[in-house]
């Protein structure tokens, strides 16, 4: 990694995670590790059918089983609804995918609850089901919801504001196509639906209590990265009479997905509401994979016009997004995805129309890449066809077309933003140089090298997201008489080291030892609002709130110290718990004296700013075995510019994370496999769902530039979320180049490679046959 001259005390330096000792000794307590008195265990009975009406449900035998405290079905569960539109019930009379919840059981042990769930007798009226997104749009296709004619979800997420982005429309597409030197009409799908599959499955503990005065209080211990947002979601589900407290401890990975835990959480809450005892619901890994949320499927059917110099003159067509049985955030993902396409590809004339469709598959939810990865992975292979025809080097194309100062894009709220971030061209050059692109790139559909059956090829992808400054963060910083500071921020550690970074930022502003700064648990009863570490907003948005809170606390401290030092606030400075007059450092006072029997509270708030984007470019070199169809990563180079590195170890972790969590490997072997006739998910286990092991790790190099982002106190911006997003289409490009035939279906499994190789051999043979020689 490149580093600039160090001018900070902590920022940019490797600081061991403060939870390190707990993590390595097994002392980090995740939700399932917490002790509760009187705990009950909740289990879910799941549907054998992809689409059916529950005609009759008899839970009598289950209820009579010793140790069973509650059985809930659609008949007696609170009618809590969620989703966009708000039509998805916790338990419904209808089941909409194999594995959909039918009934809930709470028992004294997990085994008893399990046994009871098997005693529930259900009569189903089986309905025709539809699993394919296109099929679901056909007239006469099985309809999932009365409220959704044609299985189409209404566009736009009201959460994003009054005019949410629902499509990309700009300029004049017809005119743009006329200006093009080449037009390609293409289809491509990123529809293999990889699973982010955090190691810890969804889980929660809930306790419902009477809070007096006719009010109820529910406390929920969750495993996700955004307790405060979870509180808002739950409050909207339960209604105003219920006080919701959410406590977030260590979270065993989320990658976006676990903020969509409202269903497992509400299962625990409903069972606790019935039993008035704490109830724990822990999904098995099979439930996690088959009956939680997945990445939405994406299918693009578009026309692209391009000029010889790489100018994109028009992009127009349809974007079909399969959201499975339901979704809460798909419309928002579409909005962000549309904006991200505009950030990555400069084009004056757009007309891309998204349609979100429901099918009888497991629901989709939030996954790292949030709409943009879904769209981009389908868009780049189509752009590649154009580039190939015009013999444009994809690195040149990306460099030319990624957003630059003075340009702009539509963002999720439907508004146009003039981009005021940095120019990433230098970083792109540096990445290409480190990778050795010039030497390895031999042209489209041309291998870099061939040795026997082994062929190598290279590919490149890019991603940028204007989410680094999205949504609101708030924090308090409290200064205490003992010279310590406490950061109040609703963060749950989910792997990025965000809590560490909040502490670091406060220590940097206050110039006190890291050991003198503490941070609250992510408990909504204690902290102010925090949207949570979504996208890459941790550095720019969350830290800014902490920084501002620390600055305000520092200012208040100076206001108290100034009269004691006979000086103006603006003349003071502080470090290590001592305040002094800058012009006369002999005049000094300790914090303790200023804060005798007193605390100071600084408040910081970050307001959204969508005019900035991050950027990551991923270069891959692949090896393809033409005889067996096996593909492998030989090397990965990531290039990014983060303004200023906050935490080198955390950054490295995020960048190396480009492989898994439905990232690069979603082009290699990650996919959700559903039986075409029963709709059952066949690889809902960790043997058949493929994930990268330590034996299969390619060399990774991360090129990190530090071009200051002027608008951040430490000139930094986050990049964590997008590290998975640039790689998948790069893999397709590299594999196509290695084989010499377009491969445009994810993931590139051996069967597809072998088919492509055979086609190519046939083509060559045909050409030889008609050759005049």
């Amino acid at each position, binding site marked *: 990694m490149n580093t600039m001259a160090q001018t900070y005390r902590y920022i940019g330096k490797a600081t061991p995670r403060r939870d390190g000792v707990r993590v390595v000794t097994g002392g980090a307590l995740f939700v399932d590790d917490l002790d509760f008195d009187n705990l009950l265990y909740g289990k879910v009975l799941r549907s054998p059918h992809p689409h059916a009406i529950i005609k009759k449900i008899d839970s009598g035998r289950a209820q009579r089983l010793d140790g069973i405290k509650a059985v809930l079905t659609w008949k007696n569960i609170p009618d809590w609804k969620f989703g966009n539109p708000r039509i998805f019930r916790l338990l419904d009379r209808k089941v909409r995918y194999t594995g959909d919840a039918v009934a809930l059981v709470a028992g004294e042990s997990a085994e008893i609850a399990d046994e009871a769930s098997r005693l529930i007798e259900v009569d189903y009226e089986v309905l025709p089901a539809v699993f394919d997104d296109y099929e679901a749009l056909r007239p006469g296709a099985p309809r999932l919801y009365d409220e959704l004619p044609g299985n189409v979800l209404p566009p736009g997420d009201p959460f994003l504001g009054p005019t949410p982005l629902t499509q990309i429309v700009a300029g004049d597409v017809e005119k743009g196509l006329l200006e093009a030197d080449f037009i390609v009409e293409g289809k491509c799908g990123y529809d293999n639906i990889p699973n982010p599959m955090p190691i810890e499955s969804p889980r929660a503990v809930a306790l419902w209590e009477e809070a007096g005065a006719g009010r109820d209080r529910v406390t929920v211990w969750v495993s996700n990265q955004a307790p405060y947002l979870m509180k808002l979601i739950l409050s909207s589900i339960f209604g105003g009479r219920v006080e919701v407290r959410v406590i977030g401890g260590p979270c065993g990975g989320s990658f976006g997905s676990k903020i969509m835990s409202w269903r497992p959480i509400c299962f625990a809450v409903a069972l606790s509401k019935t039993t008035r005892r704490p109830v724990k619901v822990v999904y098995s890994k099979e439930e996690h994979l088959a009956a939680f949320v997945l990445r939405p499927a994406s299918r693009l059917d578009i026309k692209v016009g391009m000029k010889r110099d790489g100018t994109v003159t028009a992009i127009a067509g349809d974007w079909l997004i399969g959201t499975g049985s339901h979704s809460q955030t798909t419309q928002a993902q579409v909005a962000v995805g549309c904006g991200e396409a505009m950030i990555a590809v400069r084009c004056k004339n757009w007309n891309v129309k998204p349609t979100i469709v429901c099918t009888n598959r497991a629901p989709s939810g939030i996954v790292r890449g949030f709409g943009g990865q879904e769209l981009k992975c389908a868009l780049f292979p189509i752009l590649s066809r154009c580039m190939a025809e015009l013999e444009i080097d994809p690195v040149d194309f990306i460099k030319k077309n990624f957003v630059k100062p003075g340009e702009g894009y539509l963002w999720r709220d439907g508004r146009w933003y003039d981009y005021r971030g940095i120019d990433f061209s230098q970083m792109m050059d540096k990445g290409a140089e480190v990778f050795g692109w010039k030497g390895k790139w031999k042209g489209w559909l041309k291998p870099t090298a061939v040795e026997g059956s082994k062929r190598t090829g290279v590919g490149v992808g890019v991603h940028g997201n204007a989410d680094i400054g999205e949504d609101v963060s708030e924090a308090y910083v409290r200064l205490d008489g003992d010279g310590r500071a406490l950061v109040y921020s609703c963060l749950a550690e989910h792997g990025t080291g965000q809590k560490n970074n909040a502490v670091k930022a406060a220590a940097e502003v206050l110039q006190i030892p890291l050991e003198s700064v503490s941070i609250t648990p992510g408990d909504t009863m204690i902290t102010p609002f925090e949207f949570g570490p979504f996208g890459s907003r941790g550095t720019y948005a969350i830290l800014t709130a902490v920084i501002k809170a620390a600055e305000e606390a520092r200012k208040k401290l100076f206001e108290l110290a100034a009269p004691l030092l006979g000086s103006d606030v603006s003349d003071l400075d502080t470090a290590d718990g001592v305040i002094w007059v800058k012009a006369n450092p002999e005049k000094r006072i300790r914090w303790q004296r200023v804060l005798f029997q007193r605390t100071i509270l600084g408040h910081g708030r970050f307001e959204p700013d969508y005019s900035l984007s991050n950027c990551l470019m991923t270069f891959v070199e692949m090896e393809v075995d033409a005889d067996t169809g096996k593909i492998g990563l030989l090397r990965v180079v990531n290039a990014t510019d983060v303004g200023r590195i906050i935490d080198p170890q955390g950054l490295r972790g995020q960048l190396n994370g480009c492989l898994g969590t439905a990232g690069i490997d979603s082009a290699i*072997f990650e996919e959700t496999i559903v039986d075409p006739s029963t709709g059952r*998910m066949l690889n809902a286990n960790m043997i058949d769902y493929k994930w990268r*092991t330590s034996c299969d790790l390619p060399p990774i190099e991360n090129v990190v530039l530090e071009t200051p982002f002027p608008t951040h106190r430490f000139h930094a911006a986050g990049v964590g979320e997008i590290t998975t997003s640039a790689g998948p289409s790069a893999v397709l490009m590299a594999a196509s180049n290695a084989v010499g035939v377009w491969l445009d279906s994810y993931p590139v499994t051996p069967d597809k490679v072998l088919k492509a190789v055979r086609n190519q051999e046939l083509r060559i043979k045909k050409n030889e046959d008609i050759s005049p020689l």
Partner: protein
Amino acid sequence: MKTFLHYDAHSIEDALSLLCRHRDRARLNAGGTDLLGLLKDMVLPRYPDLIVNIKTIPGLDYIEEDSERLRIGALTKLADLARSPSLSKSYSAISEAARAVAGPQIRNIATIGGNLCQDVRCWYYRYPAHIGGRMDCARKGQGPCFAVKGDNRYHAVIGAGKCFAVCPSDLAVVLAALDGCMTIVSRRGERRVAVGDFFGPLANALEADEMVKEIDVPRTSTSRIQTFLKFTLREPIDFAIVSVACAIELTEKVCSDARIIIGAVAPGPFRARQAEEVLIGREINEAAATQAAQAALEGAKPLAKNAYKIDIAKALVKRAVLKNNSPVV
């Protein structure tokens, strides 16, 4: 996991008498890495009432060689096979196959007997009951083979009828190539079954009252050139998509005998006799290997999604035949 009774067997006789009494209501447990998965997912048509632990039987964990044969106790762990110096020297394919199984933690508890007796990995057969109920299929005694019309990318391309699940055992492929035999015991007596004959279309040859005691391989195998190749998407964890084991006898550079076994393409280790015939009497070279590969799965009838396995099998056969067959300098 639903509960059961549990008994530690202290002798083979002990285990056999329980099996004899409880028949299919009892299950033997060795390493447990397969059985526990079946129990947790409630896959078996009949959930056992009794689990008989056979790890407590002394004297079934050994690797012994004499002038006639190599003998491996059924409870020998895969990790021990993988790192046994004597195996690496004379029966290298066995240690390679053992090393290719699952991951290191599993190899520390899984046994060779269990590896041979493990149930199939067909994702229809193994579908977990708690996600909407077990899938009753031909292998469970009722229903169709869902793989025929379903996603059959990992299923059999040859030799399957009612059930298209493939034999998941890596050791079986190698042991079949090395002419290995299993000693199976019951209160009715002892019988020997060739590893290659152990696997049937719907179940293995083990009766409800029987257990595997020992696996043996003739000493003659040591003079053969042994190769094992396993094709997977990832190096560890995965079961084979296709595997190939070869044992080739060379007499003055000419192949005098060959055993070519292809794994994960059929209900059992598939013996590619046509490929063997191509090689016998010839020098091993590129042309012979290519021809053998072409012949290896002749007659295969792939399903809709698994024809690629034939290509992979051919490539692997060719590579296996040529590997280790470069003249010794």
